[in-house]
């Protein structure tokens, strides 16, 4: 009896190694970190068909939102490390450790591809009495406790941009949290808030239509889509140490996934972002295509985590010191 079990096991393990030569031999599951209709969802649903072509297998996409991304992280890490479950996520988990939200971040996974990066902007209500970063700072200083700035909760893009700002200039404002940049930008148009830092892609159409104004690009240079808006470093040159910084979209697999699978996936994802419709989508939404894989992706992820973690730590709203997790100070 025991013998047969061993033979069976041996046969099973043999067959599983054999099948790996032909990875992928079945459908893949793509777990999208955020809900249907969001920007992560849009990016992943438009890249997936191209990757399917390259792999010759379908990717079944499911949205597993919740827990600021921690639920999808946990879910994928519970699955087998066989390369058949992909995590299609955004930047959020990189802050989970210092914020005390979860003990997993992307350093615990293998990056397949960092697809693209967004540029943060600072938007203001159309009839706000300031048009540039300097005017905004002056106005806020002259009217302490009057300006209402929207946010998307701790660790979100807004909180990090505000932490960067805080490190340069002390401002007294009211912070009003929303469930995402969509609802907050709606509130901006309705006058419920005055200023909202958000990713360019979420606001570009409204800016073009003149329904809100961009007062600054949180970057070291001007953005092609909005050449008239000055980068924040023109007003606050010290900000250079943090920039360029921005939210990103990436695809990951569980640690321990066989090399063949990682390689095949990376190769498939490396080609896909060159497809004209994807390039077009990214340009229109103001995202910069990165297409980083391997070491390059790892380096980018570490840099993001280090900058953001120390920023929130110094701003005083992290739960733990980044040192606890061996996160180095940014150089």
């Amino acid at each position, binding site marked *: 009896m025991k013998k047969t079990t061993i033979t069976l096991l041996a046969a099973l393990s043999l067959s599983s190694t054999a099948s790996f030569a032909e990875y992928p031999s079945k459908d893949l599951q793509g777990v999208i970190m955020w*809900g*249907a*209709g*969001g920007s992560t*969802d*849009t990016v992943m*649903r*438009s890249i*997936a*068909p191209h990757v399917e072509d390259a792999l010759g297998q379908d990717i079944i*996409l*499911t*949205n*597993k*939102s*919740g*827990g*600021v991304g*921690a*639920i999808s992280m*946990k879910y994928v890490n519970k699955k087998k490390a066989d390369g058949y479950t992909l995590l299609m996520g955004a930047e959020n988990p990189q802050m989970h450790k210092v*914020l005390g*939200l*979860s003990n997993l971040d992307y350093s615990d996974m293998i990056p397949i591809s960092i697809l693209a990066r967004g540029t943060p902007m600072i938007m203001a209500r159309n009839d706000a009495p300031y048009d540039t970063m300097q005017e905004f700072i002056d106005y806020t200083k002259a009217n302490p*406790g009057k300006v*209402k700035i929207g946010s998307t*909760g*701790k*660790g979100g893009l807004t909180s990090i941009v505000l932490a960067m700002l805080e490190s340069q200039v002390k401002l007294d404002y*009211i*912070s*009003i*949290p*929303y*469930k995402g940049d*969509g*609802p907050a930008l*709606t*509130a901006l*148009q*309705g*006058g*419920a808030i005055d200023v909202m830092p958000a990713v360019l892609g979420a606001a*570009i*159409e*409204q800016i*073009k*239509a003149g*329904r809100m104004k961009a007062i600054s690009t949180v970057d070291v240079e001007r953005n092609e889509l909005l050449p008239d808006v000055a980068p924040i470093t023109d007003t606050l040159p010290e900000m250079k140490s943090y920039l360029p910084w921005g939210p990103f979209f990436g695809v990951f697999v569980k640690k321990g996934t066989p090399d063949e699978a990682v390689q095949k996936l990376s190769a498939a994802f490396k080609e896909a972002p060159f497809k004209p*419709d994807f390039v*077009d*989508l990214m340009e*229109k*939404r103001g995202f910069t295509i990165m297409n980083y894989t391997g070491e390059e992706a790892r380096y980018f992820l570490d840099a993001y985590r280090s900058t953001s973690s120390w920023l929130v730590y110094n701003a005083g709203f992290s739960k733990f010191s980044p040192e606890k997790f061996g996160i180095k100070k940014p150089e």
Partner: protein
Amino acid sequence: MDAFTYFAMSWLSPELLGLTALGTFLGIYVGAIPGLSVTMAVSILISFTFSWDVNYALCLMVGVYMGGVYGGSRTAILLNIPGAPSAIATALDGYPLAKKGLAGEAIGLSTVMSVVGGFVGIIVLALAAPTVSEFAITFQPRDYMMLGILGIMLVGSLSGNSLARGIFAGALGLLIGTVGLDPMTADERFTFGVIELWDGINPVAVMIGMFGISEALHQLHHMNKAVVKQKIARIIPKWSDIKKYMPLSLQTSFIGVIVGALPGTGGDIAALMAYDHAKRTTKNPKVPFGQGAKEGLIAPEAANNAAVGGAYIPMLTLGIPGDAVTAVFIGALFIHGLNPGPLLLLEQPHMFWFTVGNLTLANIFVLIFGLTGIKLFSKIVECPKGILIPLIFLLSIVGAYAINNAIIDIWWMLAFGVFGYFMRLYGFPVGPVILGVILSSLTDENWRRAILTERGSVSDLFINTLQSPLSATLFSIIVLILVSQTPLWTKWLKPKLFRR
């Protein structure tokens, strides 16, 4: 007449016509199965229609949306399991009608009134979209908070015999709704360190359990009772009935359009408010509400389908989604290379009238598909209990799993099912619990945003409320509703003022 050409686009092309019909048909069934949501179906269709022409994809998705919102009423009437939160109010009077053997008539009437509501939504979209969307985005956090309070006051309408028990159930629902990460500070509330609880307990799981499972368990008490024979002679409602209920369904349709157009609220709240409106304004219902009043069936059905047109208003004019489904539509437009936003209608002038034409077409298909097959569906209620009860369990379990592909939702659903059963047994209404769960975060978040805006000063909040015409109106409505129920008014002022 460019507008007319675009409007007729999907009517004249056989492919577009066929896809709209197919979408509507699929939508009705997706909507009818609890847990399978229209949002989910539409996002699956995005991947499926990725390589299609955008017009083809939109026809299919618009059909699914229109059909799906209507479909939620099917299981609500037949099995007491609302297919979606927007059909909760439908179950309150629809299911009692089915128990009386009037399932066919109930479905027929709800179909016709859904279509009426759908048309009102489309007409407002076509004629007043820019005005309505500019109005909708001026809603401040304090206004959403007051909408939430107005919603919570519906407890009075959902309580049945004992208001105290209704308030208890509603408060319990509000408490259940607070589970999860605090939306303002991301602190954990009642999560006991469990990540799965961060997003709270899914209202749909609570809904399926409280309505479906608790009813199935309750049925076990009456295993020997003979099933009610369904009267299926009359399915298409009488003309006199349609005429009689038309004013009510038009009023509730307008509630539906406005609440649907608000970016922070959707068809579920619209339907509940419509139910409340029906109950308040119907002086002498033939049958009491909660026991199969037709008014209670019509109002939410007209409102939730009107909310579809409403949700499109901010989406098409401003690129702001009116609900979760239109948010997915915005994603779909991006993927197809369009730029949904305030400039969409300048860059793609055909999009507006094409969508209006499409919605109209889908609404007509709702009428056609809705009125066919009713006889067959009514038979479901005649099924022997030995078959029906396991069927309800199966449907509830599949539905709960489908919400988020998570096993935990099945456990929540079952737990609330058992809990709901005991609540019924001891005469506590379950409706207010769901009401509380749905309205909890709306009220909580917006109250805190409102008070943050005033830097914690209640008096400033009060002053600003009275200075804004919109807030002042909402505030007066709340005060009037409260005062009209107090002894001061009912016992003393009313007899004096209206003495004749």
